[in-house]
């Protein structure tokens, strides 16, 4: 035989190897490390609540009261196209889908009236131009003109699809910042689950505006691996931002729930409580937990989601945004000098982190700092951000402005600080003139000839 079996087997192995060789990222929402450190009896209701409230990446769940746009669309059947017996699909024209664009393909469609009421069909074809939908044929449904149906989470799912295509490989499936490429990046991709974003236009205690996140997506962050996605349309960017905020809300809700439980019901707490000094038995602790779960947990959940949702809603109100009371002070040598003095003063203490020459090498970079979350010292010298990463203060001579290079961006960095980092907010302690003097000084540094 000229072409041996051995060779045939080898050849047929090639596609098999190439399929199995590819590592696929896990398609599920992960839970935080703290959640996993809870005792199983406490972790279970938290996880169940999250799945109930937010679903999984395949099926996002909606619940009322979130500031994100789920994009439910309510449609009405206009006319049904006659279809042959052996046609596997039912085609009909529908109205009410004007805002759904062409994002309906593959989504479940729930019949809300007519014979099929309560049944769910899968959308197999959708023509945005003509408004024609095709669904699988099934004995339970028989669409007639006038029947209504509901398609849920259109907007959110559109955002999810775009996120998974463009953002997921760094930021991770659940926005936890550990996508497949993340291990190669420094600074590491942001973990969205704290709901904290560095570069915002809002006041120190407020969350980010949707517009801030949209700007970050469109412009990228200079000096980091976050590239610009300017070629996406405004609609696509806003859908991504919508989904990112939704992921943040999911993460924050989880954090709030776990924080309530962690002190008493983590594995470590359990070990302590049931040790000789603790003097409790495991059964006693579980009984107490059971009581908490029955009486207080629903309220905690309700409060957690509503407070997070409220915070995001408030950030988008007009008075959350930082707007200077006075226009920029003219960028003169005198103004820069006033700014330099402020920079070096005890009032601002800028030099202690950024260094007397603004090279990012202040004395603070040589200290061992305490982690506010764990109350333990970090193992490395230098400042850290809230995500636990080492964070060298910026060398202000480099002319790289991560949060944008407009004067207002620098003003806002000074006014509100940089959220999640040790950079403090000077909004209350410095006047507008002083802030603008500092802006003029800082923005002149890359060009002062002392490079």
């Amino acid at each position, binding site marked *: 035989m000229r072409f041996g079996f051995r060779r045939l087997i080898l050849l047929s192995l090639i596609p098999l190897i190439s399929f199995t060789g590819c590592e696929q990222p896990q398609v599920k929402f992960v839970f935080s490390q703290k959640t996993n450190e809870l005792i199983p009896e406490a972790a279970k209701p938290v996880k169940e609540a999250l799945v109930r409230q937010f679903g999984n990446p395949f099926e996002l769940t909606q619940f009322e009261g979130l500031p994100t746009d789920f994009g439910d669309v309510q449609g009405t059947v206009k006319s049904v196209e006659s279809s042959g017996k052996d046609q596997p699909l039912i085609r009909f024209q529908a109205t009410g889908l004007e805002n759904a664009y062409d994002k309906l393909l593959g989504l479940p469609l729930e019949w809300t009236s007519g014979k099929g009421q309560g049944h769910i069909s899968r959308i197999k074809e959708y023509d945005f131009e003509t408004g024609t939908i095709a669904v699988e044929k099934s004995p339970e449904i028989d669409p007639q003109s006038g029947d209504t149906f509901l398609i849920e989470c259109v907007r959110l799912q559109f955002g999810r699809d775009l996120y998974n295509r463009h953002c997921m490989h760094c930021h991770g499936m659940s926005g936890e910042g550990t996508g497949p490429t993340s291990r190669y990046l420094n600074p590491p991709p942001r973990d969205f689950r704290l709901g904290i974003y560095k570069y915002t236009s809002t006041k120190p205690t407020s969350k980010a505006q949707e517009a801030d996140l949209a700007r970050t997506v469109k412009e990228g962050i200079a000096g980091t691996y976050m590239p610009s996605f300017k070629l996406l349309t405004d609609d696509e960017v806003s859908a991504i931002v919508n989904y990112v905020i939704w992921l943040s809300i999911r993460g924050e809700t989880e954090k709030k729930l776990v924080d309530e439980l962690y002190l008493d019901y983590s594995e470590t707490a359990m070990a302590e409580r049931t040790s000789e000094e603790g003097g409790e038995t495991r059964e006693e602790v579980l009984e107490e937990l059971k009581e908490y779960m029955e009486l207080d947990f629903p309220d905690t959940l309700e409060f957690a989601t509503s407070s997070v949702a409220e915070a995001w809603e408030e950030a988008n109100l007009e008075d959350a945004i930082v707007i200077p009371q006075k226009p920029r002070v003219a960028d003169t040598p005198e103004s820069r000098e006033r700014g330099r003095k402020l920079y070096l003063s005890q009032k601002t203490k800028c030099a202690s982190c950024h260094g007397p020459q603004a090279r990012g090498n202040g004395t603070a970079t040589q200290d061992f700092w305490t982690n506010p979350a764990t109350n333990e010292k970090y193992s490395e010298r230098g400042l850290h951000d809230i995500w636990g990463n080492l964070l060298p203060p910026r060398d202000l001579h480099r002319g790289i402005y991560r949060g944008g290079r407009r004067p207002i961006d620098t003003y806002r960095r000074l006014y509100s600080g940089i959220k999640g980092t040790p950079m403090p907010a000077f909004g209350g302690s410095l006047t507008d003139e002083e802030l603008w003097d500092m802006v003029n000084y800082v923005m*002149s540094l890359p060009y002062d000839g002392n490079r």
Partner: protein
Amino acid sequence: MGKGWCLFFLFWPIAAVVSCAMAPFVGWSFPYNNAQAASNLGIRIDDLFYIILIVTAIVFVGTQAVLVYALWRGANNREERATNIHGNHKLELIWSIIPGAILLFLAIYQMNIWADFRIKKYYPEAAVKDPLAEVTARQFEWRFRYPAIGKKLQQKPQPDDLYSVNELHVPFGKPVMIQLRSDDVQHSFFLPALRIKQDALPGLQIPVWFEANKPGTYDLVCAELCGWGHYKMKAHVIVQPEDEYQAYLKNLTQKQFYDGLGKIAAKDTGTESEAVEK
């Protein structure tokens, strides 16, 4: 060898010629609906491409015809035996000199185009004197630095320089030059519609000039496999009339020196944050 093989070898040159001839009509030819190059130099490069295409087509069809003829004759002739020869001096000379001459012709013929494209001495003077922008490639985006309106691009960044990302605006109908740099790895500045392609190397500043001849939005892509996100490194070059270009720069200036109180209409900037701020 059977006649089946003759047909097999006959089929491929025919398929190649037919698919080449069909290419412009089914969108397999030049980018953007087989449009003419959007730069004058690009049109000359296209002409060069066609000359080479014609020469190679003639050679290809000729050699394939001879091959098929030889096969066909061999397949039909069972009596004649092959003779063992040790080369033919005359033949060797012919098939060395003719391709050599063709290559020499092409080499000399394209010299002007090459010089105009790559040798700085031959660049249009106006473009060299006043570079349009500095283009910095980095994983995975394109960053642009323009000089302030009325000023010239300096080697080092200036306080009033204008910056943008992934959107290079260019006036049309006049030659422009950019300074190409790379922040990290090797990238390649590729404007398929203008037939411009130049590698960007870390540590080097490479001048590239082009003259767009019709307004439009063209792709700027990275043609070097620069990393995992390479496919994302897509930007737009927006070719527009001089006055629109100046208006863009003016708008960019306004936007860049925005102090939170100025008057930037939301529609001009295309960002929503200003709309909220207003």
